[in-house]
């Protein structure tokens, strides 16, 4: 008998490792926890995501599906060894970095390991070979386009992107944190947990709504050596409540007597890691009494529905409204009326990194090292939960393996904070994939009814729009969705008479929160399909109809705002004109001759999206300093969740200061070190933090100029000993040693803030809710199999008004990734509360679903953004799903009333039409 417990010999990256461990442990856990090889990422522990891919004897495998004892006679290669232990690894690292193929970086090690196995076996792979080789690794950020490019580049089939010299605005430099991401050195929430940390696991409700009572914890603890403590609501030192919008804070850390959604925490167990990970929770002393629940909005607003929050009558969290002109009289309506009802489902963020982090008490302060999109909001909420001052909480954001809105809300933070505070020992928590899916926020399901009216010439006369959003058990960002959507439901079009009304409705589902677009993508699914129906009714080309109504700077928006300069929606549509005409003609010719099951369609959709908070302050503050060693410290608090703020904000600061990027050292968003740059959401970081960075860079530049009283246009050169200023041929030199460090330790410091100029909305929703809007239009080409209801998206052309392209490579990456999330929303993604809390039931697109994506960047700088730039994060996703739906309609005649258009739904709709 060969029992491998306690004696495993592994050969990893060419080195022998003798370990005393249980041979039944997952290889992934051993690599990370025993050997410190945290470059191997854990995304699901079920073989569904491929992030943990390593090579065993040259073949890619999921290390989460292998008992370590099974690998004891094999050659294992991880990302840490790929450059040396494989033939193609080094080239792949370079190519992934240069191509911008890593965004958040959580899938990147798995991608690179899979690609290395491919290239070592097949040095010049076809697209199909790459598709198959990487089909087992999910990426949520990139849309896979640049991953394809990187593999081709590493194979020598394709040249790398040009990079800039100094990293100034407009240059395609590789991301500053990119090398760490491709090499697996980037530390995410689960990657830096101290060895002496206890682990925490939450006890969660198995029912959608339930009352509960606890039994005897002492007996339970005694029965489980290694278990140290059970925590419940009674242990919360401060306020057992949190919420991202303080006036609406309503979510307990631990439910007190009743839970409101399946997965809500009622208690937590804390103990050593092995105990916590292996404990059988079926013995946990709790009695459950399931209560009636409401999962749908219909159920929640029905007369006999249980009230989910006592103070919120009818389970309505909030109403939103914008109204202008008159939508009720026939005169205002115009002669053509199109109306329809639409529904969309829950969408899960499905970032590859599940929530994770640890907390440590340091005297009377607490430190939280975790993944987050919003360090200062976390700080203030945790302080309230612990009952201590905000300044006594230190949030140290780790790298974030994807966020997309959900990591704005607290996840692990309150649990680890309370435990570490009370137990005075580091405490860590890592969400499992099911826990992440079951308990963190989702995109709001929507139910929309809308009526669009126009004149015979195709000019819109009125829109009357209502939408209900399923906001789940807690407020989260429900008020933001309910208020943002009415501002946007006109789309990027001039509409003289307008009414948009929304409600956010509580149900016993996991909270709906922020997800790339705050309800606007759902709205666009309805409005943009209705516009196509209108175009068909009038016999006007859909692109022309949009051009005819395109909003210009001198036309008031639905809230009465005049946007003035820097609006390029019209140019976005015009950029699509030629490919649109060609593709429509080809599709129609294809369909005329079609005898098989495929029908081709081409669709377009427009988009606008306000950057920043809706009529609310959202300032960012940037500090920049000249260090005694002649380098520049940039306190960059805009958390980089993969979108590239570390790079973009630095490019802006470098350009404003006039000093090349190579002299910059980044200081992270640690709340002890760096001023508040607000949350990474609402497409605000490039715009708001970028503008603060521009101001801070210029301010530091002015201070440097004053050292020698040189003119503004002088060139700055820095080395470790001196500042050189070149002013029209005149050279001035200032020794760094002649300058005294200030309180920050810098020789010169500049700190500047920016808060976008907005105005409150009045009772009718009139005002200027955003300082700038991003615009765009997508064109989709699809093939529909009319006998199976399946859709293959062949190509997306995405034209975006970005103001000024700070880094075109990163912009393309945002757009390609947004397109892919839009494709998922359109065709496959829907979370069903309480079911399928994993990544094989909840499907996101794989590399095999990726269409060709062509990005067109339109630059028309505005006076407000940094160097004229606008946000892109959410803009990129909004028009994709409606463009795909309009293409489906072009191919089949079907209007997609319910998203996603899964094969069964689409086939039923096709048959209903026939």
């Amino acid at each position, binding site marked *: 008998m060969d*029992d491998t417990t306690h004696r495993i010999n592994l050969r990893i990256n060419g080195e022998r490792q003798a370990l005393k461990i249980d041979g*039944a442990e997952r290889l992934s856990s051993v690599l990370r926890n025993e050997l410190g090889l945290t470059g191997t990422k854990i995304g699901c522990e079920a073989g569904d995501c491929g992030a943990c891919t390593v090579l065993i004897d040259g*073949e890619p495998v999921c290390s989460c599906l292998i008992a370590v004892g099974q690998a*004891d006679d094999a050659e294992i290669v991880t990302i840490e060894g790929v450059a040396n232990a494989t033939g193609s690894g080094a080239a792949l690292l370079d190519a992934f970095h240069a191509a911008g193929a890593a965004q958040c970086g959580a899938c990147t090690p798995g991608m690179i390991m899979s690609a290395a196995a491919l290239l070592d076996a097949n040095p010049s792979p076809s697209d199909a070979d790459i598709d198959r080789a990487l089909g*087992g690794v999910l990426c949520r950020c990139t849309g896979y386009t640049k991953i394809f490019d990187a593999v081709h580049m590493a194979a020598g089939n394709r040249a790398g992107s040009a990079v800039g010299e100094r990293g100034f605005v407009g240059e395609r430099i590789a991301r500053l944190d990119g090398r760490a991401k491709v090499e697996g050195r980037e530390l995410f929430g689960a990657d830096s947990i101290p060895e002496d940390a206890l682990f925490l696991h939450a006890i969660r409700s198995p029912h959608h709504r339930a009352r509960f009572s606890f039994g005897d914890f002492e007996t339970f603890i005694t029965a489980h050596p290694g278990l140290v403590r059970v925590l419940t609501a009674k242990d919360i030192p401060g306020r057992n409540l949190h919420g991202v919008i303080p006036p609406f804070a309503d979510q307990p850390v631990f439910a007190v007597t009743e839970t409101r959604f399946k997965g809500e925490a009622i208690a937590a167990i804390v103990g050593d890691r092995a105990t916590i990970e292996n*404990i*059988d929770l079926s013995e946990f002393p709790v009695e459950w009494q399931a209560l009636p629940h409401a999962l749908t909005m219909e159920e929640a607003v029905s007369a006999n529905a249980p009230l989910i929050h006592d103070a919120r009558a009818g389970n309505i969290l909030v109403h939103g409204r914008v109204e202008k002109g008159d939508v009720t009289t026939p005169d205002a309506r115009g002669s053509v009326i199109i109306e329809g009802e639409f529904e969309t489902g829950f969408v899960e963020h499905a970032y590859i990194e599940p929530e994770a982090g640890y907390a440590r008490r340091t005297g009377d302060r607490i430190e939280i090292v975790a993944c987050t999109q919003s360090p200062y909001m976390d700080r203030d909420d945790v302080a309230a939960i612990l009952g201590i001052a905000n300044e006594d909480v230190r949030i140290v954001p780790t790298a974030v393996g994807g966020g997309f809105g959900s990591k704005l809300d607290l996840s692990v933070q309150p649990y680890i904070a309370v435990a570490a505070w009370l137990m005075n020992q580091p405490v860590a928590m890592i969400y499992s994939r099911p826990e992440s899916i079951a308990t963190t926020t989702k995109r709001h399901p929507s139910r929309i009814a809308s009526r669009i009216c126009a004149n015979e010439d195709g000019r819109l006369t009125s829109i009357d729009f209502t939408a209900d959003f399923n906001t789940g058990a807690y407020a989260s960002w429900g008020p933001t969705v309910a208020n943002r959507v009415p501002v946007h439901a006109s789309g990027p079009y001039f509409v003289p008479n307008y009414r948009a009304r929304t409600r956010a409705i509580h149900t016993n589902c996991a909270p709906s929160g922020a997800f790339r677009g705050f309800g606007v993508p759902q709205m666009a699914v309805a409005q943009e399909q209705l516009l196509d129906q209108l175009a068909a009714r009038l016999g006007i080309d859909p692109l022309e109809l949009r051009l005819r109504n395109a909003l210009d700077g001198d036309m008031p928006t639905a809230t009465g705002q005049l946007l003035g300069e820097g609006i390029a929606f019209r140019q976005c549509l015009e950029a699509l004109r030629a490919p649109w005409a060609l593709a429509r003609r080809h599709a129609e010719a294809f369909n005329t001759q079609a005898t098989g099951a495929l029908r081709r369609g081409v669709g377009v959709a427009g988009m606008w999206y306000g950057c920043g908070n809706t009529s609310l302050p959202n300032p960012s503050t940037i500090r920049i300093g000249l260090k005694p060693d002649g380098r520049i410290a940039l306190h960059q608090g805009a958390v980089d969740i993969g979108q590239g703020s570390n790079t973009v904000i630095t490019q802006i600061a470098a350009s404003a200061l006039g000093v090349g990027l190579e002299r910059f050292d980044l200081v992270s968003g640690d709340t002890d070190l760096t001023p508040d740059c607000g949350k990474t959401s609402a497409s605000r970081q490039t715009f708001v933090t970028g503008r603060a960075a521009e101001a801070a860079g210029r301010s530091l530049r002015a201070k440097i100029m004053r050292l020698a009283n040189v003119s503004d246009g002088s060139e700055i050169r820095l080395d470790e000993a001196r500042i050189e200023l070149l002013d029209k041929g005149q050279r001035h030199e200032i020794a760094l040693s002649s300058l005294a460090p200030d309180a920050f330790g810098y020789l010169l410091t500049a700190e500047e803030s920016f808060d976008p100029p907005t105005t409150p909305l009045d009772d009718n929703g009139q005002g200027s809710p955003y300082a700038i809007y991003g615009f765009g239009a997508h064109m989709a080409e699809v093939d529909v199999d009319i006998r199976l209801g399946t859709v293959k998206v062949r190509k997306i052309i995405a034209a975006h008004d970005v103001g000024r392209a700070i880094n075109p490579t990163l912009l393309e990456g945002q757009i390609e990734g947004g397109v892919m999330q839009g494709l998922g929303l359109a*065709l496959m993604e829907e979370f069903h509360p309480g079911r399928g809390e994993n990544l094989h039931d909840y*499907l996101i697109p794989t590399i095999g*679903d990726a269409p060709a994506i062509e990005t067109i960047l339109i630059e028309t700088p505005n006076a407000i953004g940094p160097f004229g730039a606008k946000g892109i994060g959410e803009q990129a996703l909004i028009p994709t799903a409606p463009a795909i739906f309009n293409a489906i309609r072009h191919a089949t005649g079907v209007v997609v009333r319910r998203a996603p258009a899964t094969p069964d739904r689409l086939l039923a709709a096709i048959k209903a039409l026939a």
Partner: protein
Amino acid sequence: MLHRPQSTAEALTLLATDSATIIAGGTDIFPAHVDRPPPKRLVDISRLRDLRGVRREANTFRIGAATTWTDIARADLPPSFDMLREAAREIGAVQIQNRATIGGNLCNASPAADGVPPLLALDATVELASPRGVRTMPLDAFLLGNRHTARAPDEIMTAVLIEDDHNHGRSTFLKLGARRHLVISIVMVAALIEISGDGMVERARIAVGSASAVARRLHDLEVRLAGRAANPSIGDVVSPDDFAELSPIDDLRATGAYRREAAIELVRRALVQLADERHG
């Protein structure tokens, strides 16, 4: 605890004396234990040489139960096995195919197991070893229901046996999922037809998966296909009545009604494709 026996006999002894769970590729065991403790004792059969590989013994192909799907995709097999090799390339993705085994796919007995329809269509037999000896049984007798098989707790599946009695058979596997790669099938079809020299179907074997608790052969259709001309109009032979015994359910992936329709369409396509190949 992980045991790594050196032989099948040793594995059987471990299984008989310990209440242990067999692990081969691990691609079903670990996903089933994401949020709960893994089985206490695992017996690893993945490195037993006699359980791995494809061999021809007289007129029978013997596929060791611990043979991975990658092994099968790369194996030198006649065209009648194309459907099995195609299915091998559709199970999960490369990472899964490199570990998951044919025996695991059968013993796990998921209604959506991609390996089952081609093996049913090949009239596969499974071989099971236990301390009582070795027994074989037809695959359709082994698979009893959703996650339910005729394997006794102390038995190890050792091989899948397929008689090579169809030298001019052509086969194909069509999988329908809501995305490309790494997807649990909404429905899948394996079809094998043998065509005579004069272009007539001599024999057809068709199985549909994910549309009933256990994948099913379409015997009525198979009978009616015999003697039909193998040309593109062969799809017309397919009738919805042929699918009456399927019992597709509604789940997260699709409605039962859709599964039935899609199965009919995929069977038509498989037949037309095979007839086309014949003419092409």
